[in-house]
């Protein structure tokens, strides 16, 4: 037995031979942590158990039998974050460039199957040169197996993808299919084809960071939901984020300590300007309304005309969707539609109630938006909210016009409870436009058209502006003082927290994509 145990120890340390330090140094020199350091930094201390450390490639072509590494350049296993189980894989770039061969893929597939079967989150730590070309079609087929499981697990378990090195070619789709993508500046790069191929095919010269760095994907493409300066911050945010989520769609998100403070916040009475032309930063409201420092913004730098993120309201995790008047007046455009729809569906998957804070002039007019398909993209918002069965609460803070009113506030389309501030302006369009259309002839034939226009506008505003007409129709449930926002949202949410909705059986809907 002693001999056998020695053999076991030797095999366990097979990747820690003489070149191990060299490999670690090489990784550090690139400003990256090693695959093992990442696991230690991400999980609760000492909680990790490895699975299949001895699996290795069986391909012999191109001298690959001489280059075999135990574990095939990926570490897979499970551990805990904040005491709750997660499954993960961590690709080891220092071995065979972290390339994905048949067995490397097989290990990932097994951990995906375990995460799905056990209904626990899956965390993918990507640092790989891509397909192992020497293993040819076996490598490609490995990706196919992985992506299929990403798709099957979608909506069942949270799938987080951390890009911690290159992720190029087909490999990117394991992240594209994930719920949330995390990137680190100077470390991550993600693209379908790298700068070399682009130069050959298109003659375009572009660097790695400019093509597929963290900022590109966090600001422009929207592929990344988070961008960080260091891997350490990335892991801290992953740990923080998972605390808002249930382990799977079969559970509810974990509540934190109960809070019984219903005091008013007078400052909120003066944040939303009464002048419809004045902008403000909606973060000021979000920060005050939800539990202190609980707001975790998602897609912070992408489509900034809308702010989305997770927060807690009296200990209850919720998803927040808020128009941002300070950015593009808070209009809804194509990117904002994608951002909202994707986030709403994420919340619905994981039983997070949704709270809409509304102040938007509507969908963005313009030929570019029309040509790029604002109709089908904007429809995603309607679809996502209609499909969602979680509690949905709306607070109309100021402007809620036209299509944006329907999409984000309309009682009978999707929302359980609709609250409004006294300064809410709910209408088909702003008073200016409405009067211009309804009283076109009246104004044109007046002795003093401008005076007449102003007079009609004043009459129109008196009758139709404000929340009370909507409230009289039952389309606004309650008009609240801004200072009571926090407690009133809590009561509204509490009133529908246990609701259930029964939907007819079907395979799945056909969301406009």
């Amino acid at each position, binding site marked *: 037995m002693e001999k056998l145990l020695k053999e076991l120890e030797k095999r366990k340390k097979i990747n820690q031979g003489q070149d191990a330090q060299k490999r670690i140094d090489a990784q550090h020199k690139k400003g990256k942590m090693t695959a093992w350091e990442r696991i230690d930094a991400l999980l609760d201390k000492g909680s990790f158990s490895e699975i299949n450390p001895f699996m290795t490639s069986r391909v012999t072509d191109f001298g690959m039998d001489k280059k075999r590494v135990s574990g095939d350049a990926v570490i897979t296993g499970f551990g805990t974050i904040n005491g709750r189980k997660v499954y993960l894989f961590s690709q080891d770039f220092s071995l065979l460039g972290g390339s994905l061969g048949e067995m490397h893929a097989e290990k990932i597939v097994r951990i995906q199957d375990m995460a799905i079967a056990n209904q626990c989150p899956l965390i993918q730590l990507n640092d790989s040169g891509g397909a192992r070309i020497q293993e040819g079609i076996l490598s490609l087929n490995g990706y196919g197996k992985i992506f299929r499981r990403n798709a099957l697990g979608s909506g069942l378990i949270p799938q987080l993808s951390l890009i911690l090195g290159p992720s190029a070619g087909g490999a990117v789709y394991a992240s594209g299919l994930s719920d949330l993508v995390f990137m680190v500046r100077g470390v991550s790069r993600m693209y379908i084809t790298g700068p070399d191929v682009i130069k050959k095919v298109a003659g375009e010269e572009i660097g790695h960071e400019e093509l597929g760095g963290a900022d590109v994907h966090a600001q422009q493409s929207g592929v990344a939901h988070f961008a960080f300066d260091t891997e350490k911050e990335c892991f801290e945010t992953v740990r923080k984020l998972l605390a808002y989520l249930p382990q799977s769609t079969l559970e509810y998100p974990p509540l934190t300590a109960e809070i019984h403070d219903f005091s008013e916040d007078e400052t909120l009475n003066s944040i939303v300007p009464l002048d*419809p*032309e*004045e*902008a403000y930063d909606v973060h000021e409201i979000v920060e005050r309304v939800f539990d202190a420092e609980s707001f975790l913004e998602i897609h912070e730098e992408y489509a900034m005309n809308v702010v989305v993120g997770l927060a807690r309201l009296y200990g209850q995790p919720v998803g927040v969707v808020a128009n941002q008047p300070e*950015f*593009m*007046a808070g209009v809804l455009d194509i990117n904002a539609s994608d951002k909202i729809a994707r986030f709403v569906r994420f919340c619905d998957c994981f039983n997070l109630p949704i709270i809409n804070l509304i102040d938007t*002039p509507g969908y963005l007019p*313009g030929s570019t938006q029309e040509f790029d398909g604002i109709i089908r993209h904007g429809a995603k918002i309607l679809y996502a909210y209609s499909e969602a069965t979680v509690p949905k609460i709306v607070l109309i803070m100021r402007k809620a016009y036209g299509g944006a009113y329907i999409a984000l506030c309309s009682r009978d389309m999707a929302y359980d409870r609709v609250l409004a501030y006294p300064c809410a302006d709910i209408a088909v369009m*702003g008073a200016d436009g409405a009067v211009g259309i309804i009283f076109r002839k009246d104004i044109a034939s007046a002795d003093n058209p401008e005076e007449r226009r102003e007079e009609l506008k004043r009459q129109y505003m008196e009758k139709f502006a404000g929340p009370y007409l909507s409230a009289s129709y039952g389309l606004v449930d309650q008009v609240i003082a801004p200072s009571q926002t926090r407690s009133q949202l809590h009561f509204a949410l509490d009133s529908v927290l246990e609701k259930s909705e029964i939907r007819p059986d079907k395979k799945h809907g056909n969301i406009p994509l």
Partner: protein
Amino acid sequence: MAKEIKAKMLSKILEVKVQPGDAVKAKDVLLVLESMKMKIPVRTPIEGVVKSIDVKAGDTVDRNSLLAVVE
């Protein structure tokens, strides 16, 4: 590194708040523009010195027009 600040949408410039050479902190307002009938402050994302202001009050600019450079 110089940061180019561009218009996010069709806008009218209402007011320019800084001059080339001014030192600015991150999130300081460089200019105020109007779009969708709303006055919107344009802030610098970085701390630095205003290198250029490329518009003046009254100008109408398209999406992606250069407004200012901070470095």
